[in-house]
């Protein structure tokens, strides 16, 4: 487990640095954003919906739509893919898997890697999700903290889904590039297909960004389906890893 923590440490530092940096590119600039939308770019309203600029004046709407619905939300699948793509594929690619398999039962190797990376993902998503709450408290803004919980459900489950799929590719493929590209291509394809109305369910971004959270609340059915698919991917990844020839 010590090795897994060492492996993931650098990624975590970079992700936190970038995401916290990203947060501060918009959080302190509500007034500027509102004025930009209402004065300089009024034509955008037809794409963004009525009263979008007006809604932005509401801190709850501003911070959640800009953080979960845009900046952080867009990165959730990417963060998940980055944490998972090299877990096993790097060991195969560099030949170090023999060092592990000769010393630890495969079950333990799998569980170590799974636990460290999944807990890391949860900590990252949890911490980044509560940033709006922390910032609101520090800057004494009036904020409905229960909104964070709702968005957190979506980003956590969406993140878990893409993490699980990428984990499976990481076990299946013997090179990091294949594992990374396959996950990225799948994300692109599902998102693109999701723009076709009957296939809208395939666009996981719609769910992760919480587009309908303000009107419909947490989408529990979609959440459960993503959790089930993700769990199946992890089980299947374990099954393949147990059988895989090294």
């Amino acid at each position, binding site marked *: 487990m*010590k090795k897994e923590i*060492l492996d993931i440490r650098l990624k975590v530092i970079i992700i936190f640095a970038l995401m916290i940096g990203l947060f501060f590119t918009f959080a302190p600039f509500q007034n500027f954003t509102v004025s930009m939308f209402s004065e300089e770019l009024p034509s955008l309203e037809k794409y963004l919906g009525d009263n979008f600029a007006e809604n932005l004046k509401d801190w709850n709407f501003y911070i959640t739509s800009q953080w979960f619905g845009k900046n952080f939300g867009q990165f959730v699948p990417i963060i998940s893919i980055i944490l998972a793509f090299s877990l096993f594929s790097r060991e195969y690619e*560099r*030949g*170090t898997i023999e*060092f592990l398999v*000769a*010393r630890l039962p495969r079950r333990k190797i799998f569980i170590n890697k799974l636990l460290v990376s999944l807990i890391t993902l949860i900590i990252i998503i949890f911490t980044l999700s509560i940033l709006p709450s922390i910032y609101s408290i520090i800057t004494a803004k009036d904020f409905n903290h229960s909104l964070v919980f709702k968005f957190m459900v979506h980003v956590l489950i969406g993140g878990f889904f893409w993490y699980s799929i990428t984990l499976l590719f990481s076990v299946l493929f013997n090179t990091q590039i294949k594992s990374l590209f396959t996950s990225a291509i799948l994300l692109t394809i599902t998102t693109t297909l999701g723009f076709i109305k009957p296939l809208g369910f395939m666009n996981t971004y719609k769910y992760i960004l919480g587009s309908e959270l303000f009107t419909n609340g947490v989408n529990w059915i979609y959440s459960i389906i993503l959790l089930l698919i993700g769990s199946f991917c992890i089980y299947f990844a374990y099954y393949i890893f147990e059988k895989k020839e090294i």
Partner: protein
Amino acid sequence: MILEVKDLKKYYDDKLAVDKVNIQVEKSEIFSLLGPNGAGKTTTIKCILGMRKKDSGEIYLNGTYSYLPEKKELYKNLTVQKMLEITPSISNNFSLEKAYNFLKEFEIPLKEKISKLSYGMLTQLYLTIVLSEDVDIYFLDEPTEGLDPLKRLRLFDIIRNLSMNGKTFFYTSHVLSEVEKIADKVAIMVNGQIALMDYLDNIKENYVACAVDKTTTLNGYLYKQTEKENVYIIEKDKINCNYETATFDMIFEAIAKNQIRGDKK
């Protein structure tokens, strides 16, 4: 018996890589699996250790083990010291104290990044880890690759000492002189098959070289052909001609050549 392999078979698609291999290794023996590149030595070890799936056969491994693979790959982004420090979390049998002693002897700098080590140094670091594990049997796949002659001799000393203290070694190599120096028992593997397995002393004792005219064939291994005669390596008790002592090199060469041609007489 610490290791017994019965009728092991392993295919890669349609290619038979290991063909009905039978191996027995007793406790505290130094067993050497000797064969040319591509003979199936690594596949045999990997099947024994469960890294490759066997297609048929039985494997009984009665004890803890450690493994030095053919491709010596460790975590290149770590320093030597960090590598040793993480190893106890991966191996229950690893002694950090022993490892530091070996490192000192091999003169590998602790602060050096593994990516900057030469292949020989990497092999020594891997050997350090493997030999610092307190296990019943050590599987060493081509352990001397990249080592200078002095380091090789030192490695043989370490192996002999551990063997005298009850540890068993399963050692693969394609270097005859090494095997002759270190092994108690030898199996010669060619084309996925064990052509001969016995104690090294018995092999050298039992096989001789016999030259006969070209019209005569013997029930042995054709070693070489001259203008007038054929030289066979043959078991001493099957012989009815004048013979000379055969070196282990000659025996290996004759068996390997004949096995490759598939024309054992």
